[in-house]
């Protein structure tokens, strides 16, 4: 069984979807922040510590179009988070064994 791609579409300031995702996801899996989930990627934000810990053994990406839709410049994103577009989203989904959406 290969690794899972986890998507998180809720802001960490609104719901605990990201927290649940970080708790349940296994080493080697990937996490993609989409829609309001992109707020978690802000450097110095409340979710930064948890994400940084997860990045020790999981890869984290954020959907660039959703950053731009919210006026978040790419230089405000935490180091180590990859910015992808919808093509990147599809590639991550294809490269993972399954996709789990945390909503």
């Amino acid at each position: 069984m290969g690794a899972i791609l986890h998507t998180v579409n809720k802001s960490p300031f609104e719901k605990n979807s990201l927290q649940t995702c970080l708790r349940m996801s296994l080493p080697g899996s990937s996490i993609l922040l989409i829609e309001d989930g992109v707020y978690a990627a802000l450097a110095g934000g409340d979710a930064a510590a948890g994400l940084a810990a997860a990045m020790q053994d999981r890869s984290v990406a954020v959907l660039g179009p959703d950053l731009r839709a919210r006026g978040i410049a790419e230089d405000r994103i935490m180091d180590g988070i990859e910015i992808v577009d919808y093509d990147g989203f599809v590639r991550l989904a294809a490269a993972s064994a399954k996709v789990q959406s945390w909503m």
Partner: protein
Amino acid sequence: MKFAVLVNEGPYTHQASDTAYHFVHAALGQGHEVTRVFFYHDGVNNGTRLTTPPQDDRNVVERWSELAGEHDLDLVVCVAAAQRRGIVDADEQKRNGKDGNNLAEGFRISGLGQLIEAGIQADRLVSFGD
């Protein structure tokens, strides 16, 4: 690779239908197959052709219909969720004695088994919703 997509949220609610559309569009662009898009819960509201968004806004429903036409997509609306929300095709209109129907081009109404089948037949099932 075969993708199936589940949409659980209506148009203009938050962003799920838009994200699902862009995902499907990108997947098709990369040469993947999208075997089915299943609309469930409030997601069935993506299937009404009577929607009239402002002219400077995207037309979420029409966009799905056009994509279905271009790529022969199977857009399936859950029948039970549709009945609750007044999404009706000609058959359902007749069956339930309604005075009209509103299912958009490219969509069809069917049962939840279509979601299960899509999950079994596709390599990946990707869910979008609230």
